[in-house]
């Protein structure tokens, strides 16, 4: 249904569960993809599996210079960047009273500031092309809050405000800026939870199960598609009904 033939997409955090699924979905719809992450081996593995139109561009998103260089590297590999998926994210959970400045700063730098820098870096090409898609993966906790995740929730809520502001600025240029907010998704991040924790979470999810990375990828694919051209400044919540907002 959604055809991205001829489009180019940069996906950060592509070695993770959600990032990998997003990259596969966009690639499956015909887009060329630049897979970004800190570790090259899993990215290379994914690129080999996808085959043609898949490129690897490693970058540590905590490193400002590396972030600045990333859009240019991706454009060199693919010719342009039509679609940016800000997916990379880290957690440094701690109770507020115990949270260090460093734990706060790391999460804000990687999750929020790098997304700002990447979006700024890809805008010039999108403005000239009069077409662009910026999709940022946020989280249900950016809206609801979560104990132990003051830094993470702040970054995720910050991304929503950032995306809406940018959406205003560039809407007249054919560029849309949206967010996808996952609830509990089966990934390496949630594998760490024990059965009791998972059981407790499931009681709060009307759908009665955790989501899959593909559920998020489908939402990103839609927002990246030409069909979603009139959707901007929105957050699409994909959480099995856990928070209806």
């Amino acid at each position: 249904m959604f055809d991205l033939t001829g489009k180019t997409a940069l996906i950060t955090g592509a070695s993770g569960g959600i990032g990998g699924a997003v990259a596969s979905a966009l690639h499956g719809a015909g887009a060329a993809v630049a897979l970004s992450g800190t570790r090259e081996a899993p990215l290379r593995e994914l690129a080999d599996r996808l085959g043609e139109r898949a490129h690897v561009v490693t970058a540590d998103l905590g490193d400002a210079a590396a972030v600045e260089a990333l859009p240019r590297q991706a454009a060199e590999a693919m010719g342009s960047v039509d679609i940016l998926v800000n997916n990379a994210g880290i957690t440094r959970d701690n109770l507020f009273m115990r949270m260090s400045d460093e734990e706060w700063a790391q999460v804000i730098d990687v999750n929020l500031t790098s997304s700002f820098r990447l979006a700024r870096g890809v805008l010039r090409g999108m403005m000239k092309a009069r077409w662009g898609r910026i999709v940022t993966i946020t989280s249900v906790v950016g809206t609801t809050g979560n104990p132990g995740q003051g830094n993470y929730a702040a970054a995720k809520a910050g991304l929503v405000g950032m995306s809406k502001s940018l959406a205003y600025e560039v809407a007249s240029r054919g560029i849309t800026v949206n967010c996808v907010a996952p609830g509990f998704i089966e990934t390496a991040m949630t594998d760490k939870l024990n059965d009791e924790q998972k059981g407790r979470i499931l009681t709060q999810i009307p759908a009665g199960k955790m989501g899959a990375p593909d559920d998020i990828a489908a939402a990103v694919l839609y927002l990246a598609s030409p069909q979603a051209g009139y959707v901007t400044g929105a957050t699409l919540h994909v959480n099995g009904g856990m928070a209806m907002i």
Partner: protein
Amino acid sequence: MSDISDRVKKIVVEHLGVDEEKVTENASFIDDLGADSLDTVELVMAFEEEFGIEIPDDAAETIQTFGDAVKFISGATA
């Protein structure tokens, strides 16, 4: 100088969709030629490409009129 002026004028006319005779020395991009703030950013980007120069943000802010643009670019390419 006139060559630069012509090339700048062409970009302004194309980008803002205005008549050539409106693009005079003192014509302000925003007040007289209907540009919004994003248009001015795009104009600067177009000038950079056309002339192969870098226009830093603080310089870009001083380019308010067609004449400003021609003057800056003439200086930068001299």
